[in-house]
């Protein structure tokens, strides 16, 4: 009996993958494949050491470290940059692999079906195209969409009236909310300067009695950082008003029609976010034209900061309303900067995409009808 049930499930999953791929091809997606084993280096450079906690790493003596594909985005981007011309649309399907060391109930191998658009013009239009295409695949299922826009927070940070060094430090930790918060608190003078740093900066001759030089990080690098710390200590703290505005921005969490009003209000003082808010408004218009009224879509300014490190604009996810324990059924977003980081000087190619979990769709479809 179990075998018969398994066969039926497999057949339903295959059929759903085929349906999704058909829809993505009809939308203009050229079908692409990607290797299951990826060179680990590019992924490590992009995500840092944390990726080892999420992806399986293996190796051989000849090729070095290889990673079992944790998602398709990186190989699809690399392929596009090697041989593609804009605008380009891609569709793909296959398994991805994620370690689940914290939650054994989550699958460590599961299928993804995805759609990516590389286009230099009309970003609001392509954002809406991808969202609408993914939403159409989930039509009638008990799912709830959440949207966000990392670009607005990034614009607010870029616009902070402070030093380049502080802005760069904050930008570097946009996707690590706790460290981001700790940095903000320090730059604002809300947390005390660590005693060891105060002592170091008070010292006229900090090298007196210092230990012998070992390792690759040389004395010049240590001196450069001390100089940077001295400069930073002389900087005034971030203004309380600027912090309050940033906090208010991060707290925006309502339907898109109210959210855009709230962001417009904030942009009266937070001038730097105006272009990003205009882009959000254009996107909401494009979504509206495709039948997604702003009043029907949720917006969270903080959305996408923890799980999706490479999205830097529009972000979205679809969640099973009756299964809050599940991972999202579909996710996506815009990742303009990723192409720049992977392209090594080739410049950015604006890109937006999304993936669906066909296994969860099948499970929802069975339960929902």
């Amino acid at each position, binding site marked *: 009996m179990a075998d018969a049930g398994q066969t039926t499930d497999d057949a339903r999953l295959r059929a759903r993958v085929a349906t999704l791929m058909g829809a993505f091809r009809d939308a203009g997606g050229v079908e692409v494949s990607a290797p299951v084993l990826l060179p680990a280096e590019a992924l490590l450079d992009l995500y840092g050491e944390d990726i080892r906690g999420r992806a399986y790493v293996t190796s051989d003596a000849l090729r070095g470290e290889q990673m079992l594909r944790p998602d398709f985005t990186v190989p699809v981007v690399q392929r596009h940059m090697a041989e593609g011309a804009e605008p380009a649309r891609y569709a793909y399907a296959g398994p991805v692999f994620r370690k689940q060391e914290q939650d054994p109930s989550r699958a460590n191998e599961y299928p993804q079906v995805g759609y990516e658009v590389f286009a230099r013009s009309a970003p609001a239009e392509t954002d809406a195209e991808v969202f609408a295409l993914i939403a159409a695949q989930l039509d009638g299922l008990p799912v709830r969409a959440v949207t966000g826009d990392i670009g607005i927070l990034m614009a607010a940070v870029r616009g902070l009236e402070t030093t380049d060094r502080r802005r760069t430090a904050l930008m570097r930790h946009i996707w690590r909310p706790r*460290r981001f918060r700790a940095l903000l608190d320090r730059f604002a003078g809300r947390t005390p300067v660590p005693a060891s740093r105060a002592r170091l900066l008070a010292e006229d001759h900090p090298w007196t009695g210092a230990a012998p030089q070992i390792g690759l990080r040389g004395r010049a690098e*240590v001196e450069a950082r001390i100089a940077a710390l001295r400069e930073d200590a002389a900087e005034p703290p971030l203004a309380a008003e600027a912090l309050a505005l940033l906090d208010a921005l991060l707290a925006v969490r309502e339907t898109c029609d109210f959210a855009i009003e709230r962001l417009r209000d904030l942009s009266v003082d937070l001038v730097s976010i105006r272009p990003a808010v205009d882009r959000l408004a254009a996107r909401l218009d494009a979504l509206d034209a495709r039948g997604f009224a702003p009043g029907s879509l949720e917006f969270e300014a903080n959305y996408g900061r923890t799980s999706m490190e490479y999205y830097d604009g529009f972000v979205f996810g679809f969640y099973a309303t009756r299964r809050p324990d599940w991972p999202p059924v579909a996710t996506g977003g815009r990742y303009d900067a990723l192409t720049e980081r992977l392209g090594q000087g080739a410049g950015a190619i604006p890109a937006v995409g999304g993936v669906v979990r066909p296994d969860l769709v099948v499970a929802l479809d069975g339960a929902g009808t």
Partner: protein
Amino acid sequence: MIKLGVPSKGRLMEKTFDWFARRGVTLARSGSDREYAATVSGAEGVSLVLLSAGEIPRELAAGRLHLGVTGTDLVHERLPLWTDVVTPLAEMGFGHADLVLAVPACWIDVDTLDDLDAAAAAFRAEHGHRLRVATKYHRLVRGFLRDAGVADYAIVDSQGATEGTVANLTAEMIADITSTGETLRANHLKILSDGLVLKSQATLWKSRVANLTKNDRAALAALVAQLGLD
């Protein structure tokens, strides 16, 4: 039979034997010094298995040992979700060691994780690769640095003589077990003030997954009572 796993070598074995002896249970190696056979007296239905401390977590998790003595560090490193598979019965008061992050003492600008994160960013920009942390505790260190929000580092595996990796230019800093900090100081390394990853000591663990017959249950209960742990 209840299977009790004990480290097969050195001071950890001797101190474990002493700990049990003080509670009326005599553990001893039988045969020659080279033979890993052992006997138990003072407790019925218990057999002693001598094996490497590093393998004891795995054997407990597989249910092949009912009880085992090994460090907190090894259980936490090797068994994700360790609370599902083992229960600590007693901290044994020896084998104290802290897993710490240590950097060259000549990094006079680095004392906290906040400093480390900033130094790592600058290091990567300067050298073109991420700041390397030598350790054998990959999972624990990665989890600790992730929670602390430190970026731009890379873990490089080091199974021994980890304190020497910095001087040998195969790593920029280390994460390792220390009890007194003596070896760290001798190698011109210093501990970050908020760089304590884990406090470890020898601990008696009970497997939550090992099968127990009726007789085993009685033997286990008697042993636990004998050890004064009930």
